[in-house]
């Protein structure tokens, strides 16, 4: 399982399914075309903002010697009553990046501050990027943080 911080003042952010290490393997390309992206959608998370103010979910990553591209998108699968949160387009995960929003406007309230979502990862590489036999794998520590907006 991935790392889960102990809840502080009843905020919660945890894995519902998956959360352990995953590997996205790019192994195919059509002749004459670029390699086909690899995807993974096996990780679900749960959040309970409980901050009393609008909250958001941000993502960042650390990866030494990154050669290939990695993206993540959060697809909300369930949400408490109240107005919908704002989902964000796919975020590219780049080593050393600043936090980027993947979910915003998690409004306070006993039901609206909670939700679940599916983390959809997408790995992409071009022929010019080479392969893992030359460069090694890219290993990311992807961190999601729930905080006040």
């Amino acid at each position, binding site marked *: 399982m*991935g*790392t*889960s*911080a102990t809840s*502080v*003042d009843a*905020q919660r*952010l*945890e*894995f519902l399914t998956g*959360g*352990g*290490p*995953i*590997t*996205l*393997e*790019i*192994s*195919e*390309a*059509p*002749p*004459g*075309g670029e*390699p086909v992206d690899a995807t*993974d959608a096996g990780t679900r998370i749960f959040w309970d903002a409980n*901050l*009393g*103010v609008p909250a958001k979910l941000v993502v*960042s*990553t*650390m990866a030494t010697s990154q*050669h*290939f*591209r*990695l993206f993540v998108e959060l697809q909300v699968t369930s949400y408490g009553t109240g107005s919908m949160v704002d989902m964000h387009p796919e975020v590219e*995960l780049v080593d*050393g990046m600043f936090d980027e929003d993947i979910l915003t406007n998690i409004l306070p309230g006993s039901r609206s501050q909670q939700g679940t979502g599916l983390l959809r*990862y997408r*790995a992409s590489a*071009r*022929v*010019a990027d*080479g*392969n*893992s*036999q*030359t460069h090694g*794998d*890219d*290993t*990311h*520590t*992807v961190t*999601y*943080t*729930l*905080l*006040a907006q």
Partner: protein
Amino acid sequence: MVHPQRYKTVGLAAWALSLFSACVVALLGLSPSAWAQTPPPLPDAIPLAGNQVSLSQTVTVRVLEINRIAISGDVLIPIAEAEAGTPLSPVTHSGSTYALTVNGSDKKIVGSLDTEFPAGMELSVELTPPPGATATRRILSSDPVDLVKGVNLIAATNLGITYTGHADITVAPTGTAGISRRVTFTLTSN
């Protein structure tokens, strides 16, 4: 790299400590110069009570070595002409193409026949090399021969395949069925 949210927390703590220190200085009449540090500026945004929770997951991206090649359709080479007094004229066919994807280095393309043509018949081939590679026209046989070398990090389509068919005078007419052979191209490490 310092996490920005954590920096805000550290900055707030340092500011609070410095403020407390300044208060002590003011109360005790101590010279500020006795203290080594000046208080940092107040952070722009303050997370409420520093409440945030984080979750981490290890995600590995692995790219396997990929070598793919595709060849266009079957080829017919009609040998039907000669100048009087000279052997049969060779015929060149340039309508075939190939496509390839290579995400590694120093690959080559070799070519071969499934079985030899009858005596007196000869098929040679020359491939248009992708950028950076080199090609050689070779006579095809059941033994693989190098056709293109030095293929690196490339995805290319519509690269030409030029065949030249030759039959000497001793080869009897084949009829419309002709004589067929399977030409195989293999993309592999050098």
